[in-house]
């Protein structure tokens, strides 16, 4: 919040301020340490070139225009004649005068010139606050107050030469989110006496309030207190400059004197108020009740609101006058001709205000204040303050008496605590007299103090104080956290959490980094289009209720769509792009719904798709080796041969890695149609792994087998097969019939050529046989090889090539 320093000083002892050499910024720094964050001191600078203070010397009617006057104004160097249409002028009044050449309007678009108005020469303009862009709407000319000097520059005369202190008040301290609250904190934090200005209300009307109005609360849980006063014969008009100045410096725009006063009291006390036109309250009866379903109100800012039966309203006999604590209705609002006003200062339940605010989307200064909670003691204090100011500024007679309807008094809370607990929590022994003095200054009443046990009464406005720790904080923040010494804690060492998942994930990230991959981050948010394009069902995506971007409303099921967008930007600035991302993905249908995913995207403009794929595969196999695994520990098949639908990959040039029914991951050439859609080259390689499925298979507890002492036999053979056949399938098939002595099979050549026949290729394999207990005979090996040949022929139509 922003508070003019001069306003705070109204509540602080001047001698103490001087003695402590306190300045606004020094106070601010102290508040940062003892209370809430101080953001800095600002000065509000207004410049009014060619606008001076003038004093009205004579007012005459314009001979040819009823509504205009001819005004003689002393502007220091001379007296000027100015034609003016305002009605609030009087002789002796100090007013802002725009001299010829002055530029008015928000952008200086309106230049003042010497003109003739209805035949009378006018040498400038007498201005309202609106014309000076100080407020939105003025009722008359700005009265600059008394004791000024004609001819001085307006900048100097209405000097905003005050400092604005900017503070962030935390939501628990709603009680202090006002001038008095902050002044109180300054008084305690800076050790300056708190000074309460006195004011007296003159109840100078013959009428008694009870005879003029009836007030009834129908729902005591929603409205705990309702106070009211009536002021007759008020004059609605401009607020005096000092009041306007304080509102402007606090960030508010002046409206008219009554509204300005309620706003002023809101800033000063933190208590929202409302003023009704007495003559517009039908039946002179105010009822605080829940709305009827479908009841309507037009608010001050011209919104039509249809209420429901939870909303609390202020009503007269016939209709809603205001949505309680949020905004007033237009029909009963203060108008320029209002004579008698009914002032409302009430306390509404914060949860109810929050719900109604949210439901109707109406947020006002009042609803924010009530939403944070307001102590009940403020209700009448603010009413009295506002009544006093209205009488001072708007004139009128205050009706005798106050209406104060309230539910039962809330007992002041008491909390007992042991100072030892305070020392234990804060980590320092605070002297008891300091504790006593701090609590007393903060309005806590110490009711008993027996040895280490202290009982205090909580000031009723401190609704944030609930537990002893809350009191400990009060004491410690004023005493100073800088007094607390650093302390080392020690704990018994316990076995580490296993945490294999995170550790392996980090290893995988580092491994890809070592292999020359670069890490990118993208958002969890994605569009239905991207989700569907990659073949994921948007209906299985979790959906945001309040996306920042309406098109990015789904939570990602896969890292790939995001990664592909990154690939696009990366590939414009280099021939090789190899990027990866890790992160959580979500799907409503899977169990669990969330898992860790790892995805890579690869483009090398100088490689074909086969070599691109094999490059990516090398990283993948290396990553498996981290966990002691090989591809052959899983089932690997082309997308087209697998049981799952993977739409984003090329159906043939791709691998789906599975274990049982679980998909571990995919790796392959991006589907050409999708690549075209995203304008990526055909050799784009994508892969994605479910780390929560993969990592549990990682196992570095290797079992060592003593190497065989007997020689191994090698057998090379080439097979002609259909060009779509995978060498891996031949190997798996061979292993099934090769017996336990078939140690390994390596692929040492792959060849395509016209001599092989159409759609054929040759795969050359090296078979290694070895036994642990004897040297294998040629006959044994050949027998096994024949079995293998037969099986390969049967299963894969593999024809053995002549050597």
């Amino acid at each position, binding site marked *: 919040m922003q508070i003019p320093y001069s306003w705070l000083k109204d509540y602080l002892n001047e001698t103490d301020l001087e003695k402590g050499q306190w300045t606004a910024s020094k106070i601010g720094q102290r508040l940062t340490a003892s209370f809430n964050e101080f953001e800095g001191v600002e000065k509000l600078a207004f410049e009014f070139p060619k606008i001076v203070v003038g004093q009205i010397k004579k007012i005459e009617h314009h001979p040819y225009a009823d509504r205009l006057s001819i005004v003689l104004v002393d502007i220091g160097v001379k007296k000027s004649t100015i034609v003016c249409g305002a009605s609030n002028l009087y002789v002796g009044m100090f007013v802002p005068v725009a001299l010829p050449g002055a530029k008015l309007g928000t952008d200086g678009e309106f230049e003042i010139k010497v003109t003739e108005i209805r035949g009378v020469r006018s040498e400038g303009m007498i201005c309202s606050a609106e014309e000076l862009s100080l407020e939105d709407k003025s009722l008359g000319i700005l009265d600059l107050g008394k004791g000024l000097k004609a001819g001085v520059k307006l900048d100097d005369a209405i000097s905003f030469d005050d400092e604005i202190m900017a503070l962030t008040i935390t939501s628990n301290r*709603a009680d202090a989110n006002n001038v008095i609250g902050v002044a109180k904190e300054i008084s305690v934090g800076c050790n300056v006496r708190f000074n309460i200005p006195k004011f007296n209300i003159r109840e100078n009307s013959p009428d008694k309030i009870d005879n003029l109005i009836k007030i009834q609360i129908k729902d005591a849980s929603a409205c705990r207190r309702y106070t009211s006063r009536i002021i007759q014969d008020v004059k609605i008009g401009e607020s005096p400059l000092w009041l306007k100045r304080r509102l402007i410096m606090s960030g508010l725009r002046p409206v008219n004197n009554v509204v300005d006063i309620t706003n002023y009291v809101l800033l000063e006390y933190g208590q929202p108020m409302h003023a009704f036109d007495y003559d517009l309250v039908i039946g002179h009866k105010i009822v605080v009740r829940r709305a009827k379903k479908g009841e309507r109100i037009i608010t001050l800012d011209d919104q039509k609101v249809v209420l429901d039966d939870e909303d609390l309203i202020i009503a007269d006999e016939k209709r809603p006058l205001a949505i309680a604590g949020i905004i007033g209705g237009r029909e009963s609002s203060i108008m320029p001709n209002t004579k008698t006003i009914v002032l409302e200062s009430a306390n509404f339940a914060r949860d109810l205000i929050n719900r109604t605010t949210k439901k109707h989307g109406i947020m006002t200064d009042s609803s924010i204040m009530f939403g944070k909670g307001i102590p009940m003691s403020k209700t009448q204090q603010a009413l009295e303050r506002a009544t006093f100011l209205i009488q001072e500024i708007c004139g009128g007679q205050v009706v005798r008496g106050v209406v104060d309807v309230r539910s039962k008094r809330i007992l002041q809370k008491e909390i007992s605590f042991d100072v030892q607990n305070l020392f234990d929590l804060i*980590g320092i022994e605070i002297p008891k007299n300091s504790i006593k003095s701090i609590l007393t200054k903060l309005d806590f009443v110490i009711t008993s103090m027996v040895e280490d046990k202290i009982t205090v009464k909580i000031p009723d406005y401190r609704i944030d104080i609930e537990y002893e720790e809350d009191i400990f904080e009060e004491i410690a923040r004023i005493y100073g956290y800088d007094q*607390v010494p650093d302390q080392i804690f020690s704990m018994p060492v316990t076995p580490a959490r296993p945490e294999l998942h995170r550790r392996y994930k980090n290893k995988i990230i580092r491994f890809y980094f070592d292999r020359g991959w670069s890490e990118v981050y993208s958002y969890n948010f994605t569009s239905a289009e991207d989700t569907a394009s990659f073949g994921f069902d948007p209906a299985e995506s979790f959906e945001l209720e309040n996306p920042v971007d309406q098109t990015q409303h789904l939570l990602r099921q896969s890292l790939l769509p995001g990664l592909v967008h990154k690939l696009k930007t990366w590939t414009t600035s280099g021939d090789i792009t190899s990027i990866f991302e890790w992160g959580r993905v979500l799907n409503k249908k899977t169990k669990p719904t969330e898992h860790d995913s790892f995805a890579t995207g690869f483009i090398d403009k100088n490689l074909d798709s086969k070599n691109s794929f094999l490059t990516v595969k090398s990283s993948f196999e290396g990553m498996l080796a981290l966990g002691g695994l090989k591809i052959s520990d899983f089932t690997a098949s082309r997308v087209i041969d697998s049981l799952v639908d993977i739409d984003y990959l090329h159906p043939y040039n791709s691998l789906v890695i599975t274990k049982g029914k679980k998909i571990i991951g995919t790796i392959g050439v991006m589907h050409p149609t999708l690549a075209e859609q995203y304008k990526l080259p055909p050799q784009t390689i994508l892969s994605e792994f479910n780390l929560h499925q993969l990592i549990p298979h990682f196992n570095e507890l290797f079992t060592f087998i003593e190497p065989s002492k007997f020689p191994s036999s090698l057998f090379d053979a080439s097979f002609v097969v259909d060009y779509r056949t995978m060498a891996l399938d031949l190997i798996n098939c061979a292993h099934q019939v090769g017996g336990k002595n078939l140690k390994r099979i390596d692929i040492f050549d792959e060849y395509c050529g016209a001599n092989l026949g159409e759609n054929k290729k040759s795969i050359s394999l090296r078979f290694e046989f070895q036994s642990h207990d004897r040297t294998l005979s040629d006959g044994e090996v050949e027998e096994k090889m024949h079995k293998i040949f037969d099986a390969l022929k049967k299963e894969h139509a593999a024809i053995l090539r002549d050597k």
Partner: protein
Amino acid sequence: MLSKLKKIQSDAIERIKQARDTDTIEELRVNFLGRKSDLTEILRGLSKLAPAERPKIGQFSNQVKNFIEQAILERTQYLRQKETDSMLESDIFDVSLPALNYRPGHLHPTTRVKFALEDYFERMGYMIYETDNLTNDYDNFVAVNIPLDHPARGMWDTFWVKGELKGKGKLCLPPHTSCIQNRILRENKPPYKAVALGRCFRYEATDATHEHTFYQIEGVVVDKKLNVGHLKKALFDMVQFVVGRPLPIRLRPHYFPFVEPGFEVDVTCMKCEGKGCNICKGAGWIEMLGAGMIHQNVFVEAGYKRHEWTGFAYGPGYDRLAMTRYGITDIRHNFASRREFIEQF
């Protein structure tokens, strides 16, 4: 005879000197020292000489032999060196060429700081957790002393997700890593210390200093009689580790419903060391994290008896720590993840 020997010596020396390669030297060795050489002849014929001349000639012959051998050795060494030199020069290649089968990889700066923090906390004996991306009202709010309709709920602009988790309320993205406090408290028997790292989300517009997706690390330490002094020391040590220097920190009172007392923690500005500069906007301090002593209501909600245990918690944004560490001033770089950004790390 003597003059003949002298002649042999001078001839040999002369020709050895002129030899240009080791093959020629080998030939000269045969010519001058071989079995059929004049010198060998003379040595062989010593016995035929008069006994008076024999020792003198013999001695001199051996001297000549040694002399020639020495000359051959020296010349051979010289020529070998020359041959090696020219061989070395003949296959020079450019060692500044790019490494084969190597592309430099790059880690995101936030990941680098994450790894560093994890290393640090592991060494300090902390347990390490990771938070989920989809959480719920209970874990984020109710469990950490922010019941429904609590006015402080406005402090977190939460992304809500359609749907509900039975018993845990509405689904949402975690606005803070405190969503894991209840789980950590329930899963462990005090005393313990743990940190949790993860992505957090706040419903707000993104600009140079605000990002709706960011990272936090949540520290939770529970034991008997922990106090603000312990918290201060733990934070000071962590900050020292991250920024690499022992920079003073300060605690400012602040309000977070899950701690009491609660703090915002400032670290001395790394650039100006507290004097005030454009980075810290003249304050000399940079706001780094929120922290505090765990609220007893949070313990109670996790099934602990009120006042049986104490604890402290803190939650710096580690993407911000990374920005401070590496001098990144626009937070949007993190998720734009452009090549020009990532390839600097």
